[in-house]
């Protein structure tokens, strides 16, 4: 609904309504107004490239280049800091697949993965999205020139950001430590496999006592496991060698 089409009375009424809304109601109202929420619910048609229960990837109707894909979380979030971590990771993994797809089927020499958080960063709609943009040299897309930043300035930036960033990481570390302390005498879960058990023996203090604790600890271990699996995958990909176009793009640097 375009606010300019409302009469002054209607506009006043609307403002009054917005003021009296609870945060939940306001969120709901935003969703109702959001074009991308309507695309996700199917009220507005779109060209869908990929869909699962968390995300939707569609073609941008006003693209930077042919094949420009928008990757959207199905839940309404305005900016990246609002999104749960698990979903951010998942979205970047899917963005990688979309990029791979573009590099394979369109004749381009690169892709940009691009996020704009906030009006000042050029965000145009209130629904978070990752742009996956097919690129060719000289196409004039996202071509901001870099400048040299002197050491003094870099030092300043470092000292300003470091504390906040460590705080963001540090909070997590503290929580894990508390968990470890509060959960010393718990027995292992039967479904864990041999490798994890070995680790359990090495670090007995990390056994979870409460269910929530346990989940987090197990998750941490899973991460370790995933790493190993991925190492295998790497080797396999190298063995593969069939992925000519991607290799070409990677090899251009050599």
């Amino acid at each position, binding site marked *: 609904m375009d606010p300019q089409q409302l009469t002054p009375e209607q506009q006043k009424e609307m403002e009054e309504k917005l003021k009296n809304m609870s945060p939940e109601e306001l969120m709901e109202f935003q969703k109702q107004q959001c074009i991308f929420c309507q695309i996700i619910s199917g009220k507005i048609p779109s060209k869908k490239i990929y869909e699962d229960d968390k995300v939707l990837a569609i*073609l941008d109707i006003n693209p*930077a280049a042919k094949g420009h894909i928008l990757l959207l979380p199905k839940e309404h979030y305005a900016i990246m800091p609002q999104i749960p971590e698990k979903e951010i990771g998942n979205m970047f993994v899917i963005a*990688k697949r979309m990029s791979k797809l573009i590099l394979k089927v369109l004749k381009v020499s690169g892709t940009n993965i691009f996020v704009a958080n906030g*009006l000042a960063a050029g965000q145009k709609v209130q629904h978070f999205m990752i742009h996956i943009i097919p690129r060719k040299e000289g196409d004039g897309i*996202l071509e901001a020139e*870099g400048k040299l930043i002197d050491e003094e300035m870099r030092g300043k930036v470092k000292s300003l*950001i470091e504390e906040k960033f460590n705080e963001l990481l540090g909070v997590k570390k503290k929580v894990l430590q508390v968990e470890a302390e509060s959960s010393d005498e718990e027995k292992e879960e039967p479904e864990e496999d041999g490798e994890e058990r070995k680790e359990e023996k090495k670090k007995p203090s990390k056994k979870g006592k409460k269910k929530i604790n346990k989940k987090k600890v197990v998750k941490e271990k899973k991460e370790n496991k995933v790493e190993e699996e991925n190492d295998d995958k790497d080797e396999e990909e190298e063995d593969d060698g069939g992925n000519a176009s991607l290799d070409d793009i990677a090899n251009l640097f050599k």
Partner: protein
Amino acid sequence: MKCEHCDIVERRSKIEILYEDEEVVVAIKDLSITPGQITVFPKQHFTILEGVPENILEKCSLIANKIGIAVFESLGSQGTNIMIQNGLGAGQKVPHFAIEVVPRVENDGINLTWEAKQLPEDEMETAFMTLEQGMKDLDSVEEKEVERKDEKGKDKKIAKEDDKDNYLLKSLRRIP
């Protein structure tokens, strides 16, 4: 091959590291679109996005998000751009995958944008059909990879059981 990011990891560069762990490095590089730009990259050398393992990509994206939050709160930015330049044609300068976090303020004159095009409907439709078909092909290739991996996994399990047997045999032999 010389790689600026590997040089940073191995301390052969003057560029300061803001954070590092076993897999990810965060650095403030000297060539930036704007002061305060932060670069997040995997420690291991991967040239392009497509080569980065999922768990490392996830970790990089989460750290980039945290850097974004830190930038919002400590540099007084009004926005951030999170950007991956993937391939020479996309403006990638260093042959080592990285996520750039660019702090933004209103009217900062930074040209991180593009001209939105209105493509003819038939052109959009061909692009859509090409990508749709490509997606199906990609899915089937990945399914096959998963199947193959499963088989590999089985082999490994068998091998492990063998090891176990060997271990038992060895310890049996040790019994006087």
